[in-house]
């Protein structure tokens, strides 16, 4: 009998914890507002467009207006890109028709909300964020996920892809 009571209490605690987590651990991300249209992954010839929020919850459209997209799928590449852009003027990316997109979908919500988003808000430039695993899986290339991905576009179609690692390479790619 005692075992059953203890088990019931544990189950109730887990359910209560789950409910509380759902109520309090959720973020402001509204999946219905954001999207990705990718015809054939991140490959040459693929047509891509995105509607994504930045770190300040401002919505950005990336379509035929984009000449270059810088993708980060790992914390280390995100640090490299941020370190490079923090030395440049705020308009550095827009003036080149370039966008910086970071995949934060693998992060636990608590890490994302408590550490990553406040940290990103230190950056004056826009970092477009992929919260949704369903968007990330359309473009993520696991083989090169630890590298910075530079995609060149012409009217929304990918014309070139490079995988790089350093700030120097990034500078060269954006000039």
């Amino acid at each position, binding site marked *: 009998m005692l075992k059953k009571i203890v088990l019931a209490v544990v189950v109730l605690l887990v359910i209560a914890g789950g409910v509380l987590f759902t109520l*309090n*651990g959720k973020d402001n991300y509204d999946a219905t507002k954001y999207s990705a249209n990718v015809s054939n992954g991140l490959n040459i010839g693929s047509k891509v467009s995105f509607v994504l929020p930045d770190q300040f919850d401002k919505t950005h459209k990336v379509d035929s207006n984009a000449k270059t997209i810088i993708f980060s799928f790992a*914390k280390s590449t995100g640090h490299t890109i941020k370190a490079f852009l923090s030395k440049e003027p705020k308009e550095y990316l827009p003036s080149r028709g370039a966008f910086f997109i970071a995949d934060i979908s693998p992060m636990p919500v*608590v890490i994302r*909300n408590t*550490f990553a988003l*406040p940290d990103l808000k*230190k950056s*004056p430039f826009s970092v477009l964020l992929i919260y949704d695993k369903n968007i990330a899986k359309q473009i993520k290339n696991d083989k090169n996920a630890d590298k910075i991905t530079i995609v060149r576009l012409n009217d929304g179609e990918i014309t070139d892809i490079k995988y790089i690692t350093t700030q120097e390479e990034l500078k060269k790619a954006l000039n």
Partner: protein
Amino acid sequence: MKKLVAYITSGYPEKSFSIDLALSLGNNGVDTIELGVPFSDPVADGALIEKANHKALELGFKFKDLLDISKETAKSVDTLWMGYFNSFYQQNMQLLIPKAKEMGVNGLIIPDLPHEEALLYKDLFEQNNIANISFVAPTDSPQRIKEVVRDAKKFIYMVAYTGITGSGKAEDLQPFLSSIKQYTDTPVYVGFGVNAKTAKEKITGADGVIVGSAFIEILLDQSTSYTQKIDRCSELAKILKNEIN
């Protein structure tokens, strides 16, 4: 007197060094030592701490090293463990928390354990008089802050990234700090981005600061000997303590 908490990566570059460093810091103004548990993917930490974590693991850090280090440091300085939940969970929380108490450890800091899930271990922490340090961030809603700080013990870890607002203006953390303090008398310590240059500004309205990367940067300097690293960290601790008081 405002408090200074210093984070060091346990076992980097080696176990005996961590003990010597922690004891020296304790003698030079550090009130609490945060012994970091090296982890392969320290998602909440910056590049320097991540590097020290990886190096410690490469050098063969084992969880037992943390126990050995803690046993020595806790005799002289208030000692906490900081690590990712998987490291602790693998040790079996039911056995680990009493073990922490036995080692003289006073609390755990687990950044990837949400408050709501930590409630499952609330009794275990309380029975062993071990604090599970609560985090609050500027992104938290007032309702969530209220919920989190209600159960806070020892101190509240305020993530103090001084970001900018969407309009490009520098973010003022004082309203955030005030919003925490309206719900609790538990001291609030600020962490993230605190160093000798920022400590004076970050301590405003808070009860303590937590400094990690500034110490780890010294440890990662390959050009200095162990003695020089300890001397430089101890000097930094003195400067920080002076800056915040």
